[in-house]
């Protein structure tokens, strides 16, 4: 399949997924009890007249399909909608937070890739106690909740040693890197441990393959064999897992965001769901779905570089 055709098919698939997801999410929100009224009327509640006026103003009592179609229509005109809880355009809410989320996820992804692959390869190639140690560490990393890691990191590196700030996302550039270092570590530990185990298994499998044995028998340098025959062939499962992990980090960062007082998309989504702020929920879900599809498209393209036999968009 040509790159153009692949792109067209992917985009079509993306639009279909977006439509279906938005419909399902909208429907689920609609069915769940509760309303955003509490957040519009304020702490003293409201009189019957006030409640009626607000309900009419924001169309809270309109039938499901009317509201969904209205939302869809706005979206097609490029309008993500209006947050009735924040009295702000949803696009402004998202653009204020997407930078933090992207920086955090990018740093965490880098850590996961480097640490996960290095540790997994090291464990598989060295074997023995190195393997034992790495596997044990990976098990601990997988089973420790990220907020515990976050609190521990703050206690040691921010309060104890004073190397890092305790919270926030900084003012851009290096400052942001310093601010996001601890949250990125907290976010990446479990995924890095998971990737290490996948890498270890994959490398072990490749090492036993015939072509590797042949290369060894032919007397090729061990480093060359590892790089060109073992690692390269192990990369397909590794990249697959890495792609899926990164896509889930965006929404999964909510716990870490809370511990480090970062306001990213994850926190925004969770709050919006509980406040029944439909427009915000829908918009964040759209961003998540797009991110998921994009990451997977990148993974698809990467496959063709890792293994030229794989054709873009093929089912193999």
């Amino acid at each position, binding site marked *: 399949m040509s790159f153009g055709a692949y792109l067209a098919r992917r985009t079509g698939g993306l639009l279909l997924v977006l439509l279906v997801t938005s419909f399902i999410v909208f429907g689920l929100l609609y069915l769940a009890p509760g*309303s955003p009224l509490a957040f519009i009327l*304020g*702490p*003293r509640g409201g009189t019957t007249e006030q409640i009626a006026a607000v309900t009419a103003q924001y169309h809270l009592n309109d039938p499901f399909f009317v509201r969904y179609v209205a939302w869809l229509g706005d979206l097609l005109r490029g309008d993500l909608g209006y947050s009735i809880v924040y*009295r702000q355009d949803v696009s402004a*809410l998202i653009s204020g937070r997407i930078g933090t989320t992207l920086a955090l996820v990018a740093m965490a992804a880098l850590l996961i890739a480097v640490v996960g692959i290095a540790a997994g390869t090291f464990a598989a190639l060295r074997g023995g106690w190195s393997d034992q140690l790495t596997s044990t560490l990976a098990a601990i990393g997988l089973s420790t909740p990220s907020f515990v890691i976050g609190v521990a990191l703050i206690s040691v590196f921010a*309060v104890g040693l004073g190397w890092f700030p*305790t919270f926030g996302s900084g003012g851009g550039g290096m400052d942001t890197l310093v601010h996001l270092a601890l949250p990125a570590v907290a976010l990446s530990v479990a995924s890095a441990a998971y990737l290490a185990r996948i890498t270890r298994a994959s490398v072990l499998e490749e090492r036993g393959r015939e072509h590797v044995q042949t290369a060894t028998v032919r007397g090729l340098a061990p480093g060359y064999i590892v790089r060109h025959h073992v690692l390269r062939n192990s990369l397909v499962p590794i990249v697959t897992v890495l792609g899926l992990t990164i896509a889930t980090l965006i929404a999964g960062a909510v716990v870490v965001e809370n511990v480090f007082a970062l306001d990213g998309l994850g926190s925004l989504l969770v*709050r919006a769901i*509980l406040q029944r702020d439909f427009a915000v929920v829908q918009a964040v879900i759209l961003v998540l779905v797009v991110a998921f599809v994009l990451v997977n498209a990148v993974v698809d393209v990467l496959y063709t570089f890792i293994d030229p036999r794989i054709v873009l968009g093929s089912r193999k």
Partner: protein
Amino acid sequence: MSRRRITVATAVLAVAGLALTACTAQPAGEEGGLSVDLTNLATTTEPGTQAVELVKWNLPYEPMSLDPMYTFNYAENTVVANLCDSLVRMKPDLSTEPGLAASVEQPDDTTIVYTLRDGVAFWDGSPLTAEDVVYSLQRQTGDTTTSYFASYFQNVASITATAANEVTVKLTQPDVLFTQAMATAAGAIVSKAAAEAAGDAFGTPDGGLQCTGPFSLAAWNSGKSIELAANPGYWDHAMVPKAAGLEFSFIADESTAVNALRTGDVDGQFFYLPPAGLTQLEQSDEVTTTYGKSLVFWTMTTTNFDGGLGDERIRQALSLAIDRAALTKVVFQGAGIPATTLAGPDYWGYEREAFEEAFGEFSAEPDLEQAKALVAEAGTAAPIVLAVQGSSAVHEQTANVIQAAGQAIGLDIQTKVIPVEQFGNLYFDPAAREGIDGFFTTNYGSFADALDVYQFFASTDSHNYTGWDLADEQLFAARAETDDAARAASVIEAQQIITEQLPWIPLAYEPVTLVQNDRISGATASFAYLYAPWAATIGGVE
């Protein structure tokens, strides 16, 4: 709604809180071992003398709006208090002084004349006019206003500019709550031109704000921070800020907030309930913790009189069985005062002696024998279901104390956990209250008049979920009574009925917990931080 909420506190914090409580158990003194003395709460802190570049303050969550009429909550009011002046200003001791109105006169009970101060300008330089005042108040009147303070404006007939510097408010009937509310954000004045230009976006990160306060709104970075800049042209020369800038962060997680305070990453924070890491703050040599006069109280509301709580003898028995001294120690780490009535001593803004005498007749001491007798008299009571806010240590621990108290006198008390973001629905959505007999909440009246709290129990008030109406006569009489002594008599009568009948059960008075880094000092320590410029007096300490 979250002004009544406890911000995120995980189960871990609950455990940590219990552990810390154990460490700080006070030696039993004559006051029952309390570390906070009700008679000795602070109103101010030593003013800092040095100019400072930037003061970094933390809020428990990001404000939803900074438009004063949408600010009825801790974080919102903490910010707006420094931005927008009210007609009347609340002093740190909770009494009042002239604000934007140089004088307030009441030629008769239903007419109030506000004469505006000369030479007051908005941040953009435009002068404050009677038009701005009329606009700021007018938009909060009427049946369909969305102002959070609408209930204070229910008796307003008209608001008119009667001279270039004079605004006259006519009431349909005398209303002492309206006049006192002018010292809160309800009486905050915004620029008419700016508010009309921004429309719905006024007070949001997009729409900005235009007021007259000692700080101006420099930037609101949605999700990150709110930045204020000192207003050098502030009309009250004594209150021109010593800090050039004031920046608010939004750390919701209490342990992170405590760590940020300990490391100096933030310079201060007001806690409306003592945080789980209170001892860490008390022991830190980076910060000073001050407990301030407060109108905040911790209470158990009732939502449904068809169940176990419908019989007043059961409510009385439960109240008698609660060991409030233990509750303040366990739940609030000693930084709380057992409550005998809902409105505590800090509400006695007038006729203090009369209130004090009436207060002296009530006791917070548990009496299990009498409680058991009341339960026996009432016969079998249906199980009582209390809503508990999820992931809140304070809620869970209080529920444990109440359950234990119920068990001791043979009452079956069950709990139902509701997530923090949905907990607010309990306040106004009858469907959310179905199957629930009561819930815990912090709450406060807006100014030092016990009537503002007891008004909740007027049968017409939105807080009165059960339709309880035994004090209506006294409450309506008090609201329309402009004579202090006569009003005090009605309020005290209402208090007597409410404290005996217990439509809500008082649990504890909560002082303001103010934490300041030792490099600065001067923040207002009392509840007035919600409605008057508390940061103007902050300066550097040598």
